[in-house]
C-alpha cells in the first residue's frame, strides 16, 4: 500500500511539474491572470474613489476579484489540452484521479501566486488594516482551496464543450456562492480584529466544503474525462 501511494504521488507530482513547466514557458495563463486582476482592482479602486467603504464591502470586493480571476485563469489547465490535442496521451498515461489532482494542485499554486501579488495590492488600494492576520490568512487560504476545487472540475466539464469561457462562469457561480459568502464573512471578521476562534464556524464550513467538493470531483472526474 505505501508503495502504491508513493507511485501515485510521484505521478501527481510529475503532472504538476509538467503544468508548471508548460506554464513557465508559455506564460499562457499567468500573464493574463495577473493583468486581469490588476486591471479589475484598479477599476474598482477608481470607481470607488474617495468614497469610504465599510469593511464588509471591502471584503466582498476582494473575493469578487478572486472569483473573476479564477474564472479567467483556472480553466486553461484543461482547455489547453483539448485545444492542442494533447489530451489523449494523458488519457493513456495515468489514472484519471491522478490527473485531476495534478491539475488541481497546479491551479491552487497558480491562485496562490496570484494572491501574493494581488492581495497586498488590494490591502493598499483600499486601505484595509487587517487586525487578525492569522484568521485573515486562514480564510484566504481555505477560500482559495475552495475556489480551486469547484473550478477545476467545472473546467474539465467546460473544456469538452463549444463555449468554454462564458460557460465556466455560469456553471461555477452557483457552486462557488457558498465559498464566496463564507469567505467574505470570515475576511471581514478578520479585518475588524475578532479573535481566531470567532471565525471557527467559517473555517469549519470551508473545510467541509473542500472535502465534499474534492471527493465529488474525484468520483465524477473520470466520467467527464473520458468523454
Amino acid at each position: 500500500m505505501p508503495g502504491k501511494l508513493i507511485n501515485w504521488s510521484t505521478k501527481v507530482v510529475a503532472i504538476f511539474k509538467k503544468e508548471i513547466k508548460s506554464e513557465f514557458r508559455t506564460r499562457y495563463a499567468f500573464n493574463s491572470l495577473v493583468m486581469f486582476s490588476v486591471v479589475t482592482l484598479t477599476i474598482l479602486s477608481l470607481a470607488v474613489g474617495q468614497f469610504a467603504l465599510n469593511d464588509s464591502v471591502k471584503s466582498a470586493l476582494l473575493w469578487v476579484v478572486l472569483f473573476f480571476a479564477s474564472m479567467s485563469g483556472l480553466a486553461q489547465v484543461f482547455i489547453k489540452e483539448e485545444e492542442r490535442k494533447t489530451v489523449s496521451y494523458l488519457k493513456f498515461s495515468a489514472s484519471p484521479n491522478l490527473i485531476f489532482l495534478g491539475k488541481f494542485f497546479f491551479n491552487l499554486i497558480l491562485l496562490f501566486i496570484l494572491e501574493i501579488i494581488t492581495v497586498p495590492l488590494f490591502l493598499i488600494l483600499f486601505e484595509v488594516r487587517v487586525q487578525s492576520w492569522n484568521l485573515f490568512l486562514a480564510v484566504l487560504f481555505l477560500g482559495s482551496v475552495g475556489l480551486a476545487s469547484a473550478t477545476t472540475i467545472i473546467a474539465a466539464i467546460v473544456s469538452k464543450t463549444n463555449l468554454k469561457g462564458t460557460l465556466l462562469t455560469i456553471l461555477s457561480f452557483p457552486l462557488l456562492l457558498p465559498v464566496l459568502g463564507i469567505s467574505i464573512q470570515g475576511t471581514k471578521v478578520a479585518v475588524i480584529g475578532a479573535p481566531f476562534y470567532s471565525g471557527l464556524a467559517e473555517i469549519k464550513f470551508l473545510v467541509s466544503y473542500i472535502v465534499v467538493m474534492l471527493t465529488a470531483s474525484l468520483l465524477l472526474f473520470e466520467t467527464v474525462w473520458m468523454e
Partner: protein
Amino acid sequence: MLSIELENISKRFGERTVFENINLKLESPASLAVIGPNGSGKSTLLKIICGLIRPTQGKVRIKVDGQEIKKEGHRAIFSIVASDIELYEELTALENLGFISRLRDSQHSEIELNQKLEQVGLKGREHEPVGLFSSGMKQRLKYAVALSVSPQILILDEPSSNLDAEGVFLMEKIIEEQKKVGMVILATNDLKETQYARQTYKLVN
C-alpha cells in the same frame, strides 16, 4: 498470450451511425490493417479499441492467458500514434518522452531515453522544444514515445503520414519488431500498407 475481442461494437454520433455490429477477435502475435474510404470510421474504431472513445454499444474484451482484464487495466496495454494526437509543443523531445513514460510506470534513465530518441533518428534534437520540429520529426517522436512504454498492442493511425523515405523504413522496422512481441493494429487509406498486417478488416460507409 494476449487476446482482444470486439463484441457487437457500434458507434453513433448524434443521428449518424458510423458503424455497427463489428465483431473481431485477435490473438497475439497478430497484426490487423483496418481499411476503408474516408469517413468510414477507421480512426474511430481504432480509438474505441484502445479505449479513447466509448462505443455506443458493445464491449471490448482483453484477455491475458484467458483471464479478462478490467477496463482500468486496458490503458496500460496500448500505445497509439495518430495524426490528431499531439505532443506538448513547449516541452523538449526528451521532456515529452520522460513525462509520458514516467506516467506509464516505465522508468528510464536519461541515457536510455536519449537512446530511444537516437533510434528514431532524433539524435541531437533532444533538447529542442517540439514546437520547432517539422511534422516528420514530430511523427518520429510519436513513435519513440509510443515504444518507450513497451506496449503489448501498438495502434497506428495512418502510420506513414509525414514520414520521409528514411522514416518509412524506420516505421517498417518498428512494425516488424512489434509483430514479434505483441500486436499491431493499423488504419490506412493506402492499400499498399495492408502488406504490413497479416489480417485485413474493411469498413464500409
